[in-house]
């Protein structure tokens, strides 16, 4: 090419360059929106075939009635919402239909909802989506969420609405929602004294409820109470929180080691449905050092896939619920559970011991940014404060003490980023401890106590007395 390019050519070339640079910048700007798992999930399996196209969904048989249930179950509590003309949040029904159609087409047949999910809109949205398919192509699970009142009328209303909302005349899997708090006494008040339990047992007899079970959150004595009740009522299935962290590292107060729960249920041959397989998303977004270990083990596997394979590897598990919001989540999980490969014993230990031990050293707060606690009446950005702290801990950049290498730098970064992330008026220092947030937290985080802890921590950083 001639060295003497004229000015016009020069401008043209630089213009093209600039346009290209612009396009690259745009692409770069879009990239962070994709989740880590989605990016990893785009990788096909070792032999070059994509299980999404050729694989078969892993099915588990319910010994009680012979149901062939997909190992991946759809948790219907996190669909995207949009604003209606009045500014109210409403479920994006097109998106729900789209996801549910795709899931069904790939063998997912267990759909878990509840009257309280999605600000009370989940049952109806799921009903609309599923009623477009043959009734025998899916199993529906919903719950008796009578937390607010022990009044029988409330329970009846919840029960009857479920049929209307879901547009069905029988329910495949019906759960007593969130048992555990209060143990046997709590159960008595919520279900026995008001006759609701007798009613539900009768409905099971009639076939309106095909399988009756419960979901559990609580401590060990409460769980033992529920197991005792099995002799009386015969739970057809039980839903528990299980993941490779909680297998051995549950705190024992708010939840019990899943190892124990599983063993107790296995002993009684009760089919198990798994919730919180990612521990509220935490296992899909672990600390950098954990990411490093997991990726070293298998650079192609998504972070979430490890957690899903872990729970799926236990034979008593009937289905694993995942609240899949986006298509990427669904596809990543489908790749895990189509042509499912259980973990080896060595891999199980790697997760529930090696990895979980590392995670236990990162004192993160088990907040998954669900924002149920909001709005705080005092204007505090509760999840924002927890996310900022967790991020610092997970990335190993949390200032701990003066002897630490780079302490001054970490200290400054923590304080500056805190001010940038959370406006001063919404920081933890403004918590008065009114406790209104506590019952709203599905993770049972003692929010005021944690806010005070973080506030005291920031105060120490500021004063240089850490």
């Amino acid at each position, binding site marked *: 090419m001639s060295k003497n390019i004229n000015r016009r050519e020069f401008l043209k070339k630089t213009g093209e360059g600039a346009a290209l640079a612009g396009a690259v910048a745009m692409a770069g700007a879009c990239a962070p929106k994709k989740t880590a798992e989605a990016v990893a999930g785009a990788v096909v399996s070792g032999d070059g075939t994509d299980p999404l196209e050729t694989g078969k969904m892993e099915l588990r048989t319910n010994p009680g009635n012979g149901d062939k249930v997909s190992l991946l179950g759809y948790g219907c509590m996190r669909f995207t919402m949009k604003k209606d003309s009045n500014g109210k949040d409403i479920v994006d029904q097109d998106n729900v239909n789209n996801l549910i159609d795709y899931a069904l087409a790939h063998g997912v047949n267990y759909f878990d909802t509840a009257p309280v999910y999605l600000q009370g809109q989940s049952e109806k949205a799921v009903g609309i989506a599923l009623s477009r398919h043959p009734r025998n192509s899916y199993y529906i699970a919903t719950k008796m969420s009578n937390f607010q009142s022990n009044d029988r009328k409330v329970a009846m209303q919840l029960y009857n609405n479920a049929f209307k909302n879901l547009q069905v005349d029988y329910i495949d899997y019906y759960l007593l929602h969130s048992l555990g708090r209060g143990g046997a006494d709590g159960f008595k008040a919520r279900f026995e004294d008001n006759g609701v339990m007798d009613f539900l047992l009768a409905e099971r007899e009639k076939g309106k409820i095909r399988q009756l079970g419960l979901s559990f959150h609580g401590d060990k004595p409460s769980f033992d109470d529920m197991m005792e009740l099995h002799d009386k009522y015969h739970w057809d299935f039980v839903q528990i929180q299980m993941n490779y962290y909680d297998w051995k590292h549950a705190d024992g107060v708010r939840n019990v080691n899943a190892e124990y729960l599983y063993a107790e249920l296995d002993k009684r041959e009760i089919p198990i449905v798994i919730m919180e397989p990612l521990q509220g998303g935490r296992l899909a977004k672990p600390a950098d050092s954990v990411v490093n270990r997991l990726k070293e083990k298998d650079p192609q596997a998504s972070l979430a896939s490890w957690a899903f394979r872990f729970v799926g590897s236990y034979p008593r598990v009937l289905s694993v619920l995942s609240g899949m919001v986006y298509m990427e989540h669904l596809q990543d999980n489908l790749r895990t559970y189509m042509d499912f490969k259980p973990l080896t014993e060595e891999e199980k230990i790697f997760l529930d011991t090696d990895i979980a031990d590392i995670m236990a050293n990162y004192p993160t707060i088990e907040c998954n940014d669900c924002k149920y606690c909001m709005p705080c009446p005092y204007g505090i*950005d509760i999840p924002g404060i927890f996310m900022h702290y967790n991020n610092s801990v997970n990335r190993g950049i949390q200032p701990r003490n003066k002897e630490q290498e780079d302490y001054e730098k970490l200290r400054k970064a923590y304080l*500056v*980023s805190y001010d*940038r992330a959370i406006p001063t*008026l919404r920081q933890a*220092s403004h918590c008065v*401890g*009114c406790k209104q947030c506590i019952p709203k937290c599905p993770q049972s985080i003692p929010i005021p106590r944690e806010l005070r802890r973080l506030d005291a921590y920031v105060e120490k950083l500021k004063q240089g007395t850490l």
Partner: protein
Amino acid sequence: MLKKIRVILAVLFFVAVTLLFLDFTGAIHHWLGWVAKIQFLPAVLALNLVVIIALLVLTILFGRIYCSVICPLGVFQDGVANLSKKGKKGKYSYSKELKWLRYGVFALFVIALIAGLNSLVALLAPYSAWGRIVQNFLAPVWQWGNNLFASIAEKHESYAFYTKEVWLKSLPTFIIAAVTLVAIVILAWKNGRTYCNTICPVGTTLSFFSRFAMFRPVIDASKCKSCHLCEHKCKAACIDIDGGKKIDYSRCVDCFNCIESCRFDALKYGFSWKKSHTSSTPLHPQRGTEGRTPQTPCVASLQNNTLASENPSAPVDKTRRAFMIGSALALGGSALSSVKALAQTEPADDTPVEIEGEGGFADIIPKVAPKRTVSITPFGSESVKSFYSHCTACQLCVAVCPNNVLRPSKDLKHLMQPEMSFERGYCRPECVKCSEVCPAGAILKITPEEKTQWKVGTAKIAPWLCLVDNGTVEECGNCARHCPTGAIQMVRKEPNNPRSVRIPSVDESKCIGCGACENLCPSRPISAITVDGYQIHHNA
């Protein structure tokens, strides 16, 4: 050559002083803090004899170098004048000294200084004026720039910059700064150093000494061809070629523009004590060229001027003086009264910047400053009286306060001088920045350890506002939790009831008045616990 040196030094000093006001981190004070301390008025108020004597000696030796090099407002005016048509083309001409205005303002200044009317002092003083201008107009731009950098840096996971909240600290001070800026720019644009030679009290003070300067520009009458080039170049309008090839050394600011302009080598900057005794000594006033010959320094010259009634121009002067003093007072008075009116329109300018929320946030009612019986002055100021009598209202401490506690007062008595209030933050125990930067001795240097031992005020409780006391919540204690000295005790509301709610009480022996409790009290807009200042600060 001399001019070049002058320009370089002036730019260096100007940038240094301006940076002091812009650098909200307080980091460069470590190296450049002295630039503020050698400013004349702060030195006087700090009774910094070393600096005062040094500046006076400098002036006696070399003339008003101070005005051309050290004073930021002077250098700013040179900058403005350089941009103007007149300045570019050199179209200035000699003008008579406006004695009545000049000495009238000076008298007013001295009276204000003695009477402790520091707001008036600050209104007239050049360094304070520049501080206000920078703080109100340049600093926000600087801070927005910083915040932009902070957000860019954050994207690259760097926290080298921290976000600085930009807010209007005081509307009256903002208006005064705006009026000052406009007035200075107009004066400098039209006629160069008019402000310095008619209004500036520091200029007038130095003029008493500069007229005896050992070194100064001197016209060699034998070489001078009366071409007026130097006169046209003189932005101080102090070279009178037609009136006898004289220079009014009381007004000359040693800019050396004239020396560079002379084509006949008739103007030189040199030793001239001998000559001064023969030509324009104060002992031999040249009545014929009245207006350039003040007699004896200071008060004596004032008396001389006020008594110069045998002069034919006296009646005119008298009325002019009356007019000038009257208008100066009126100007001051009207400014003050307008400010008072504005002060009453609170809390419009105290409202925090709206915080963006994503639906999920409760609105937060902005805090409003409570009425304080005694205003709170910074730790290190020793007493309210001492603080306000030393403070030049230069805003340096306001510029560096990282907690948004210090702001110019709207109180008429201390207008523009800072005070503390806790709507946006509180005086944090580890911070002593204001005490590190004060050039006027209004805030003396203290350490964080000393700070916790000093009481600048004490908290008091309004039980009907306290959310626990009035039954809104069962538990709070946010004030007690954040008190750095542990001065707040949560006590049972009903002493005989073991399950009684706990309400705050102040241990006045421990409270230092830092405002943590007031700032973090959930009661809005007025906090249930507020701080009142102490007239005299003392040991805790």
